[in-house]
């Protein structure tokens, strides 16, 4: 179970102004801006749930994911994931979660995918029999048999994403964070990724938290959505209740307009 309670997070960034004179001035003096990334964020996610975490760019989605995956420490508030505080016992925590960043690869670029898997096996200390079983299962489900021997850099985006999914699941995590997993994929790959995630959740009861801009992802994968804007949770509820039977893209656009984000 994941709980977040009154989580706040602010950043300080150096202001950079354009212009020659400004550049000269900033050589001696620099201004800082404080950006509130998360403002009293609270929610609970049960085991085995699938949640779509949506909101415009810069709303605080990736800050939340980073806190939940132990990368960031919040300024205040409480957060536990299966009883663990992510940033306090990082190593123990991350051994039980999987993270996919859609825009960044976790595979070793120049070696065959299978070599990356083998290395991940050692990184996560996956027992040989568990590894073999997971690898075989994932290879079949994601149709990887023919691309396992190909270096990652030679894969198409869709092939690569399938490998990324497999890579993040080799150690049988209970929770999977997906940060824009379908970005830039073609229609066939998108459908394959969505179907796989649904199946994973159904068969392994893996909790899935998904951020995306693609509302078809949400529609296909999750029941529940959490809408975040300007660091605040604006809406948390069942997708069918919110959109009724209408077009989901339109519903979300209306939500954004209604909350002025």
């Amino acid at each position, binding site marked *: 179970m994941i709980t977040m309670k009154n989580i706040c997070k602010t950043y300080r960034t150096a202001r*950079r102004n354009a*212009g*020659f004179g400004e*550049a*000269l001035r*900033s*050589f001696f003096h620099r201004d800082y801006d404080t950006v509130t990334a998360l403002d009293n964020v609270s929610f609970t996610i049960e085991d085995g749930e699938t949640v779509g975490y949506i909101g415009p760019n810069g709303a605080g989605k990736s800050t939340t994911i980073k806190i939940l995956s132990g990368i960031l420490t919040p300024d205040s508030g409480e957060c536990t994931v299966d009883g663990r505080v992510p940033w306090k016992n990082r190593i123990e925590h991350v051994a039980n979660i999987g993270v996919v960043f859609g825009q960044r690869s976790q595979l070793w670029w120049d070696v065959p995918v299978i070599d990356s898997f083998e290395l991940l096996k050692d990184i996560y200390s996956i027992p040989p029999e568990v590894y073999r079983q997971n690898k075989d299962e994932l290879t079949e489900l994601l149709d990887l048999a023919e691309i396992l021997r190909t270096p990652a850099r030679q894969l198409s985006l869709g092939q690569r994403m399938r490998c990324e999914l497999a890579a993040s699941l080799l150690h049988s995590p209970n929770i999977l964070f997906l940060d824009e997993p379908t970005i830039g994929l073609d229609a066939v790959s998108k459908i394959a990724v969505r179907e796989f995630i649904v199946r994973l959740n159904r068969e392994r009861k893996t909790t899935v938290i998904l951020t995306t801009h693609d509302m078809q992802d949400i529609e296909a994968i999750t029941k529940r959505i959490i809408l975040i804007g300007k660091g605040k949770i604006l809406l948390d509820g069942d997708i069918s209740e919110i959109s009724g039977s209408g077009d989901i893209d339109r519903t979300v656009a209306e939500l954004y307009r209604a909350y002025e984000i």
Partner: protein
Amino acid sequence: MSKFFARRKRYVSFFKLRFAMGLQYRTAALAGIMTQFVWGFMEISVFRAFHQSNSAAFPMGFEQLASYIWMQQAFLALFMTWFMENEIFDSIMDGNICYELCRPIDIYDMWFARSVANRTSRALLRCIPVLSAAFFLPQPYRMILPPDPLTFICFIAAMLLGMTVTVSLCMIIYMLSFFTVSPQGLRIIFAMTAELLQGIVIPIPFFPPRIQKIMELLPFASMENVPLRIYSGNISGMEAAKAMLLQAFWVIILTAAGKLICRSAMNKITVQGG
């Protein structure tokens, strides 16, 4: 005429942009200045130790050497062959060069101006702090002023000539990379050769006399060797005039050669389609 001014304006604005960019990264600039300062200091310390061990074998006055080294550190950006434009190399490697060819500018002139702007903006940003510190150091590390104003004027002229030689040599390397299988290898070999022969590893007067004579005729010696030795007073009078004449000679030869290679490289591209 108006075309000339329009173009010059473009180069000036490019220079200003580079300068502003350099200022933005203030910590980087400070770090660079500090690095160069320590470098100069250590370099002089080594020579001081050699000087103390055997001062009779020292080929120039010690304060001349100190000035030589400080000037070298201050104007590093003008003469280092490592500072090549990665953008140019990349555009050659990945074939984006074809887009550059579509612009109504001579590619040789454009790259040349860009390199000059880059080098001068970098050097200007860094020379003032290094030099002002070097003038206030205790002996024997202190930098000296040139003996007379004429020497200083010659130094400036020789420095501009030296930078032009550096840039035109680099231009030849850019152009040659159209023809080689390994631009990276070419670049390494060129930079290492230059480093040794232009007097960065040790100043040219420290080589044995016979080797020195040959080195001084090569274009590499027309880069920083001439201005730095003029400034420190190591060469003067007729000797300095001859050296500067040789610099001018190399400027003409090297730019002509560069333009020639540029033309055949462009032919190669248009024939092969990049």
